[in-house]
C-alpha cells in the first residue's frame, strides 16, 4: 500500500515541478525534470519501486548537497565582505612570521607531547585560508557556481577532519578492539576491519595520512618543477634546452609504471614515494611555469627591472611570480588530483603507506572480501578519495574559468 502512495507521490512531485518550471519559463529545469519523468517510466517498469526509491534518494542527496553548498558559499561571502583577512594582508613579514611561529609551535608540541599540535596546525592553516577573503573575492564568490562552492565545502571538511582526527575518531588508529569483520553497532559505526580495528576511526585518520602524503608529494613536485621552470624561463639558452629534454623523457614514461619501478628498487617507503612523485609530476609543472613565465619575461617591466640592475632572484620573486600565480594555483589543484590518485593506486597495490597506519587506498584492498557479501563498507574509503578529487576538480574548473575569462 505504502508503495502505491510512494509511486503516486513520486510522479506527482515530478510532474507538478516540471509544470511549474514550464510556467515560469525555466527551460533547462523543465527539460531536466520532464526527461527524468520519462526515464522514470522505463526505470519503474524495469527496476520496480526500488529503482524509483533510489532515484528519489539520489535527488534528496543532491538537494542536500546543493543546500549545503549554497549555505557555505553565503557564509564565505559574508566573511569576505566583512574583510576578515584585512589585518593579515597589511604586513607580509608579520604574517609569514606568525604562520611560521605557529608551525614551529606545532612541531615543538608534537616533539615534547604538549598535546596542542592540532590547535597550532589549525591556527596556521586558518590564517592562510583567511588571507584571500576580501571584498574583491566576495564579488567573485557570489557568482561562483554551486559545484565550486560544494568543492570548497568538502575541502574544508577534509581539512578539519584531517587536522583534528585524534579528537574526532572514537578509537585509536591501530587499536584492535573487537573480532575481525565485526558487524556495525553502537560502538563501531561502520563495523570492524580485517583485524578488528574500528573502520570509522581509520577512515578519519586516513584523511590525515593519505591526504597529507599526497599534499607533501605535490608540494615537492611543485617546488621542483616551478623552480626549474622559472630558471629555464629567466636563463634560457642551453639550460632551457637541457631541462626541456629531460622533461620530455620523463613524461614519455607512464606515471604509474615509473612509480612502480622506483618502488621496486628502493622499497615501499614514504620518502621514496615523495621523491618518485616529485620526479614524475615535476615536468608538467615545469612546462606550465616555463610557458607562463616565458610570456611574462618578454614584458617591458621586466626589461625595466633588468636595466635597473636587479638580479635573477629579485626578478623571479617580485616580477614574475606575482604575475603568474593564477594559472599556477589552478595547476597545483590539478596536480594534487593526479598525485592523490597515483598515491591511492600505489597504496591499493600494497606499495604505499605501510600498515598499521590507516590509509584509504590500502583499506579498500584489505577489506575487499566484504564486497562479495554485498557490504559497501570497503567502498567508503574509495568514495572518500573520489569525493576529494572531484571537489578539487570543481574548484579548479571554476578558477580556470575565472582567470581565462572564457564564456564557453
Amino acid at each position, binding site marked *: 500500500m505504502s508503495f502505491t502512495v510512494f509511486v503516486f507521490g513520486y510522479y506527482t512531485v515530478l510532474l507538478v515541478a516540471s509544470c511549474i518550471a514550464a510556467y515560469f519559463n525555466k527551460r533547462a529545469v523543465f527539460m531536466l525534470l520532464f526527461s527524468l519523468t520519462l526515464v522514470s517510466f522505463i526505470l519503474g517498469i524495469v527496476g520496480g519501486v526500488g529503482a524509483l526509491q533510489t532515484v528519489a534518494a539520489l535527488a534528496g542527496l543532491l538537494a542536500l548537497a546543493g543546500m549545503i553548498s549554497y549555505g557555505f558559499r553565503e557564509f564565505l561571502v559574508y566573511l569576505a565582505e566583512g574583510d576578515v583577512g584585512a589585518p593579515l594582508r597589511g604586513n607580509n613579514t608579520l604574517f609569514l612570521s606568525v604562520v611560521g611561529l605557529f608551525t614551529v609551535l606545532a612541531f615543538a608540541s608534537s616533539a615534547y607531547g604538549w598535546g596542542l599540535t592540532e590547535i597550532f596546525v589549525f591556527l596556521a592553516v586558518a590564517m592562510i585560508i583567511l588571507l584571500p577573503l576580501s571584498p574583491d573575492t566576495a564579488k567573485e564568490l557570489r557568482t561562483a557556481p554551486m559545484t565550486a562552492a560544494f568543492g570548497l565545502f568538502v575541502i574544508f571538511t577534509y581539512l578539519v577532519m584531517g587536522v583534528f582526527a585524534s579528537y574526532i575518531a572514537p578509537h585509536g588508529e591501530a587499536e584492535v578492539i573487537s573480532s575481525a569483520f565485526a558487524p556495525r553497532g553502537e560502538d563501531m559505526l561502520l563495523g570492524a576491519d580485517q583485524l578488528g580495528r574500528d573502520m570509522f576511526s581509520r577512515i578519519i585518520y586516513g584523511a590525515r595520512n593519505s591526504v597529507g602524503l599526497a599534499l607533501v608529494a605535490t608540494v615537492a613536485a611543485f617546488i621542483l618543477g616551478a623552480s626549474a621552470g622559472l630558471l629555464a624561463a629567466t636563463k634560457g639558452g642551453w639550460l632551457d634546452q637541457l631541462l626541456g629534454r629531460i622533461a620530455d623523457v620523463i613524461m*614519455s614514461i*607512464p606515471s604509474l*609504471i*615509473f612509480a612502480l*619501478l*622506483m618502488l621496486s628498487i628502493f622499497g615501499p617507503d614514504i620518502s621514496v614515494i615523495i621523491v618518485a612523485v616529485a620526479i614524475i609530476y615535476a615536468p608538467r609543472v615545469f612546462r606550465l611555469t616555463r610557458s607562463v613565465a616565458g610570456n611574462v619575461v618578454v614584458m617591458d617591466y621586466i626589461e625595466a627591472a633588468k636595466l635597473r640592475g636587479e638580479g635573477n632572484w629579485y626578478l623571479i620573486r617580485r616580477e614574475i611570480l606575482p604575475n603568474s600565480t593564477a594559472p599556477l594555483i589552478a595547476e597545483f589543484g590539478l596536480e594534487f588530483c593526479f598525485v592523490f*590518485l597515483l598515491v591511492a*593506486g600505489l597504496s591499493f597495490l600494497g606499495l604505499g603507506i605501510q600498515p598499521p597506519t590507516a590509509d584509504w587506498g590500502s583499506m579498500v584492498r584489505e577489506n575487499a572480501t566484504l*564486497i562479495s557479501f554485498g557490504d559497501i563498507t570497503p567502498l567508503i574509503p*574509495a568514495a572518500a578519495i573520489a569525493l576529494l578529487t572531484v571537489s578539487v576538480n570543481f574548484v579548479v574548473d571554476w578558477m580556470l574559468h575565472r582567470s581565462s575569462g572564457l564564456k564557453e
Partner: protein
Amino acid sequence: MGDILGLIGRRLGLGLIILLVISVIIFFMVELLPGDIAQAVLGQGATEENLRALRKEMGLDQPAIVRYLEWLGGAVTLDFGNSIVTDERVTTLIGDRFMNTLFLASYAAVIAVPFAIILGVIVALLRNSIFDRVANVMTLTSISSPEFFLGYILILYFAVKWSMFPAISSLSEGMSFWALLERTFLPALTLVLVVTAHMMRMTRAAIINLLASPYIEMARLKGTPPWKVIVRHALPNAWAPIINVVALNLAYLITGVVLVEVVFVYPGIGQALVDAVSKRDFPVVQASCLIFAATFILLNLAADVGAILTNPRLRHPK
C-alpha cells in the same frame, strides 16, 4: 608525398631515441641500489660464497655497461633473461599475459572509442544546455574516481547483487570467444567508463574550438543545414584532434589497466608487474616496464603521425 614520409620518419627516429633513453633509465636505476641485486635478493644474512655464486650466475661480475648492452640486445630479440624468483624465462612468464592485456585494452577501446566520440559531438552541439552541464559533472566524477572504486562498484552491482557477470576474470584454455567476452566484461567496462569520460571531454573541447571558427559561421550564414555544417565542414577538420584524443586515451588505457587487472584478478602483464615489484623480481620488473613504456611511446607516436596525416597545415611548418 616524400615530404610526409620524411616528417614521419623523423618522428619515428625521435621515438626510438626516447625509448633508448628510457631503457637506459630502467636498467641503470637498478644499479643505484645500495649494495647490488644479489645482496637485495639474498638479504642481509647471505654468506659470501652464496653471494659470489649468484653474482656470477647473473653476470654481475662484468661491468654495468657490458651487461646493459647484453640486456638491450636480448630485449630486441624479446629475450629478457630469467626471473630471479622462479628462475623461469621472463618471456614465457609475461608473453601470454601481455597478449591478455592487449585483448582487454582493445576490448575496452572497441566499445569506448565510438561511444565517446558520438557522445562528445552530441554534448558539443548541446553546449551550455543542462545536459551539457550534467554530462560535465558526470565525466568529471568518473575521471576523478580511482579505477578500483569504479571496478568494485561494478562488482558489487553486476556480480554480487544482480549476478549478471563473474566478479573474477579467470581465463582458461579453450574458452569460446563469447565466454571470453563475458568473463572480461566487467574489467573492460571499468576501463570504458574511465576512458570514455576523458575522451568525451577532449572531443567536446576539440569540436567547440572548431565550431567557433569563422568558416563555420560562414557556412551557417549561407544557409547550410546544421547536419551538413557538421558533416561536410566541421568533421574533416575535426579528424586531427579526434585521432589525437583517441591515441592519447589508448595510451592512458595501457596504464589504467594495471589497477583494473589487480581488482579483477585478470592474468595480464599489469598484475605480473605488481607481483614482481613486491617480490623485487628485477628482470620481470625491467621487462614489463620496458614493454609498457614502448607501448605508451608507440601510441603517442601514432597520435603525432595521425595528426600529420590528417592536418595538412602541420606538413608545412612555418
